C-alpha cells in the first residue's frame, strides 16, 4: 500500500479529468528512506490535517468536473431531468471514474453506496450534478485513491504475485509518474499483464510515448534529492535567487533526460559531459555570455572550464553546501550516498570540530587545510578520509557553483583520490566516478527500489544482479535498464499473506 506522492496525485488528476482541472492544496510531506522519498510512500499514512486537505481538494476537483464549463466534456451521459436523480447516468459516471481513480473496477457495493449518496444529495438539492459531484468526491477522498493498494494472487508454484491491476499501476507510475491509461487497464482486465510477453508489450508501448520523460523526471528528481530546501545568504551570494534555484533544477533534469532518454547515451557520461542547457539566470552564475533570444539553449562548457557533468551544475553544488560557504564534507557525503549507495554513519557524539573553523590560524587558510587537520583525529578519520577527499575535488566551486581559484588569498588545491585512484579537480572526480562500477549498480538498485516502493539499502545482490548485468551489457543505456528492471520476475513479486484468502491485499 503506497501513498500517492504529490506529483503522482497531480498527474493522475490531469490524466483522468484534464490538465485544466486545478488542484490546489497542501500535500503531506514525505521522508527520505534509503536515499529515496518514494520508499516512504510505503510506510507513511494520512494525518488529520492531511486528510482535511485531501478532502478539500476532492471537493474542489469534483466541483470542477461537474461545473458548466466541464460538464459537456467530462460527464458522458445526460440525466433525464437535471433536477432529479438518475441512477443509470450517475452509476455510469461513477463506474467510469471509479475504475480510473481506484485503478481497478469498483465492487458492486462500492458503486451502490455512491449511487445512493448521489441520489440522496440530488433529492436534497434538486440538482442532479450536485449529487454526482459528491459521489465523485467520495471516490477522490477514499483510501483506494489516495493509496495505491496492491493485491496479490497465488502463482502456480505456491508463490504470490501482483494481480493485473496492481501490475498496471506499478508500470504506469514508474514509467509515466501517473495513473494507468485505458489501454493498460484493459490489458489488466483481459489477463495480458499476467504474462511476461504482455508486460513487455505494454512496457514498450509506454516507453514509446514521450510521457516516459515525466516518469524518469520524477525518478531523477528523487534520485538526486532535488527536493532539498536551499537557502543562500544574500550577503555572500546576491546572484542567487528562487529563479536561479528553479532554473538550476530544470537544467539538471533536462540535461539528464536529454542524455539518457532522448540521445540514449551512456548514463556514466552524465558525470563527465560538458554539455548542458542554460538560461539567462544560470548564465550569470556560470559566468558565461548569453547572447540568445530563446529562453533555454544547449551549451557546452569549454575544456578549461573545470566543469564535469551534473557534479558541477549549480543544483548539486548549491544543494550540498552551507548557506554561506562550500562544504567538502556535505558534498562528499552526498556524492557517495547518491551515486555509490554508500551512506555515511552519524559522527560520534562527542567531537571537537573547532579546528575546522579557526580561520585565524596562519597556517590553515583554506577549508582543505582546516579539514585535513581535523581528520587527523582517529575517530573522525574513518569517515572523513572517505568523504572529504571527494568533496575537496569540487573546491573550485563555491556555495552556489561559481568557479574560483583561491580562498582567503591562498590558491585552491583540488587534488583528491577515490579508492586509491589519485586525480585533480571536478573533471578528475567525474572520470573516477564514471569508471567506478558502483555508480551504475547503485543507480539500478535505486530505480528498482523506486518502482517497487522498497528501501534501496535492502535490495540484495541476487535481486539486482540480473538487471545490473543487462544494464552493463547495453553500454549503460537507461531504457535498457528500465526494461530489465520490469522484466525481473521479482518486480511484481508479492509476499505470501499470513492467512491466505483467495484475494489478498499486500504491502
Amino acid at each position, binding site marked *: 500500500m503506497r501513498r500517492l506522492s504529490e506529483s503522482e496525485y497531480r498527474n493522475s488528476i490531469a490524466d483522468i479529468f484534464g490538465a485544466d482541472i486545478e488542484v490546489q492544496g*497542501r500535500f503531506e510531506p514525505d*521522508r527520505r528512506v534509503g536515499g529515496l522519498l518514494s520508499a516512504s510512500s510505503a510506510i*507513511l*499514512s*494520512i494525518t*488529520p490535517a492531511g486528510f482535511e486537505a485531501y478532502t478539500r481538494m476532492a471537493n474542489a476537483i469534483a466541483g470542477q468536473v461537474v461545473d458548466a464549463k466541464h460538464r459537456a466534456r467530462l460527464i458522458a451521459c445526460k440525466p433525464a431531468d437535471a433536477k432529479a436523480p438518475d441512477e443509470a447516468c450517475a452509476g455510469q459516471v461513477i463506474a467510469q471514474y471509479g475504475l480510473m481513480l481506484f485503478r481497478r473496477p469498483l465492487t458492486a457495493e462500492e458503486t451502490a*453506496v455512491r449511487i445512493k449518496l448521489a441520489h440522496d444529495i440530488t433529492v436534497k438539492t434538486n440538482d442532479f450534478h450536485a449529487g454526482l459531484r459528491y459521489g465523485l468526491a467520495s471516490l477522490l477522498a477514499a483510501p483506494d485513491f489516495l493509496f495505491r493498494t496492491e493485491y496479490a494472487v497465488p502463482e502456480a508454484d505456491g508463490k504470490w504475485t501482483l494481480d493485473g491491476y496492481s501490475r498496471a499501476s506499478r508500470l504506469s507510475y514508474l514509467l509515466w509518474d501517473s495513473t494507468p491509461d485505458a489501454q493498460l487497464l484493459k490489458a489488466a482486465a483481459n489477463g495480458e499483464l499476467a504474462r511476461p510477453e504482455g508486460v513487455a508489450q505494454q512496457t514498450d508501448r509506454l516507453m514509446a510515448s514521450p510521457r516516459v520523460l515525466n516518469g524518469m523526471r520524477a525518478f531523477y528528481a528523487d534520485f538526486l534529492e532535488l527536493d532539498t530546501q536551499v537557502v543562500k545568504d*544574500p550577503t*555572500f551570494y546576491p546572484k542567487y535567487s528562487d529563479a536561479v534555484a528553479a532554473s538550476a533544477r530544470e537544467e539538471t533534469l533536462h540535461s539528464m533526460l536529454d542524455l539518457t532518454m532522448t540521445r540514449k547515451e551512456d548514463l556514466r557520461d552524465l558525470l563527465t559531459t560538458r554539455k548542458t542547457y542554460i538560461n539567462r539566470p544560470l548564465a550569470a552564475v556560470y559566468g558565461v555570455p548569453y547572447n540568445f533570444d530563446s529562453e533555454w539553449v544547449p551549451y557546452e562548457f569549454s575544456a578549461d572550464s573545470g566543469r564535469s557533468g551534473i557534479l558541477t551544475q549549480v543544483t548539486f553544488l548549491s544543494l550540498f553546501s552551507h548557506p554561506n*560557504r562550500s562544504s567538502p564534507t556535505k558534498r562528499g557525503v552526498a556524492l557517495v550516498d547518491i551515486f555509490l549507495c554508500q551512506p555515511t554513519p552519524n559522527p560520534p557524539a562527542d567531537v571537537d570540530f573547532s579546528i575546522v573553523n579557526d580561520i585565524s590560524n596562519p597556517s590553515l587558510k583554506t577549508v582543505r587545510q582546516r579539514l585535513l587537520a581535523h581528520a587527523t583525529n582517529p575517530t573522525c578519520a574513518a569517515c572523513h578520509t572517505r568523504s572529504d577527499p571527494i568533496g575537496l575535488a569540487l573546491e573550485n566551486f563555491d556555495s552556489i557553483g561559481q568557479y574560483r581559484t583561491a580562498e582567503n588569498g591562498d590558491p585552491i588545491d583540488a587534488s583528491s583520490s577515490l579508492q586509491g585512484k589519485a586525480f585533480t579537480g571536478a573533471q578528475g572526480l567525474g572520470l573516477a566516478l564514471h569508471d567506478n562500477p558502483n555508480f551504475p549498480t547503485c543507480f539500478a538498485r535505486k530505480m528498482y527500489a523506486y518502482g517497487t516502493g522498497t528501501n534501496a539499502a535492502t535490495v540484495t545482490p541476487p535481486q539486482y544482479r540480473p538487471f545490473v548485468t543487462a544494464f552493463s551489457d547495453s553500454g549503460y543505456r537507461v531504457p535498457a535498464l528500465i526494461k530489465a528492471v520490469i522484466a525481473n520476475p521479482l518486480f511484481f513479486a508479492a509476499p505470501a499473506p499470513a492467512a491466505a484468502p483467495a484475494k489478498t491485499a499486500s504491502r
Partner: protein
Amino acid sequence: MTFNRRTLLRGLFQGSAAMVALPLLDCFLDGNGTALADGAPIPTRFGTFFWGCGLTKVLSQPKSTGANYEDMPQLAALKPYKAKFNLLSGYRAYVDSKPNIQHWSGNGAIVTGAAPSQDGQFEGQTIDQTIADVIAKGTRFRSIEIACSGNKRESYSSLGGANTNPPETSPAGLYTRLFGPGFNAGGSDWKPDPEVMLQQSVLSVVAEDRQRLMANVGAADKARLEQYFTSVRELENTMAVELKKPEIVASVTIPGMPENMTVNKSVPVLLKTVPVFSRLLAIGLATNQTRIFNMALTEPANTMFMPGDSHVFHQATHEEPVDEALGYQPNTSKFSTHSMECFAELVAALDGIQEGNGTLLDHCLMLAYTDTSNAKLHAIDGIPMFLVGSAGGRIKTGMHIAGNSETTSRVGLTVQQAMGLTVDHWGVASNQTNKPISEIQA
C-alpha cells in the same frame, strides 16, 4: 512595549479593518471572571514550542533555584514574563541501550517518554496528541502545527512512527486554515452551512470502506489504515463543530489576511515572521478553533543563520572554539539568544489577549523544549525546558527547578496531570516515572 509590538503587527496584516469583531462582554462572565456566565469554564489549552541546538548553559542556567532566581542574559527577552513561567534545568533523557541519535533522541524522549529507536521516528504518539485525545473535542481542529522556517518537514507532533502532523508553513497559510472557509464567528444571523452537511455524507461513505479494507491487510498496513480512518473521524468531528452555533466570546479582532512574507531561517526573517504566526495562533486559540498547538522554530540540527556570518547555528556549535576567558562559544550563543527572542514573541502574543480576569497565557500550558543541552557534544543530560502559563491555575509559576539528572518524563507527567489527564506514571524504561514535579503543582 506590548502596545508597540501590536501596532507594528497591525501593519503586517492587509488593511487594519476588522473582518469580524468579537467583543468579550463582562456580562458573559461570572463574578470571578474565571468562567462564562453559563457555567462553561474558560478552556485550558496546551502547546509546545520547539527550537534546535539548546542554550548556552553559563548564559541561561541560574545558580539558584525556586522563586526569585537570578536573571540570565540569554533569557533577557523573556524577563517581562518571568512570573508566568518555570525554567527547568538538569532533567535528562535516558537512552538506555539505544544509541544517542544525534539531534533526535533528546527531543523524541521528551515528547513521547521513550527514547527513539530510529532517526526521525517517534516511539509513540507525542504528548500533545495524547492531550488532544482528551481536550480537543468540541474544537474545529484537533491541533495546529506551525513550521516558522517554512519547511513542511519540520513538525514534531505525531500519532506515532514516521508520520508527523503537517505544519502550516506561511502566515497566509495559517490564516486561511484558521479563519478561511469553515470559520464562523456566530452572531444573530448564524445558520449552519448546508455544504458542510453534504460533505458529512461524503465522509460517511468513505468510512464505510473501513471494514472491507481492514479485513485484507497485513499488520503494518492495518496500522496505516487505522491512522487514515482516525483522520476521517477527526474531520467528522471538525464538521460537527462547524455545524454548531459557535459560542465565541473573546476580546479579539480577526485581522485581515496577512501579506505575503519571506519565510526562511535567516534570523532577521524569523524575528519578523514569528510574531505574525504567534498573533494568528493566539487569536485562533482565543476563538476556540483549536486547543492544541505545536510551533517549531527550526529543525533540531538548527540551520538558522545570520546574514553575513559564514556559519549556520548547527555548524557553529561544532566548529566554533570555546572562548576560554568567557567559557562558551560566543557566536554560537547568539543563535540561542535569538531563539529565545523568537520564543518570547510567542509568549507575548499569548499574554497579549485578555481572557477572564487574566490573559490567554494564563489559560495555557506550553512546554518549550529543545533537542540537546550542549549541542557541541550532542549532550542530552540537562536539556533546558520551560513550562509557560499556569494552565488555568493548576500550575504555580515563576520558579527555576533543577532536575538533578532525573528523567525528562517528570515534565511530561506533570503536564498531563495539569491538563486533567488521569495518569499516574509515564514513560518507558529509565524514562518511566511516577513523580510529577510537585513543587509547581498548584
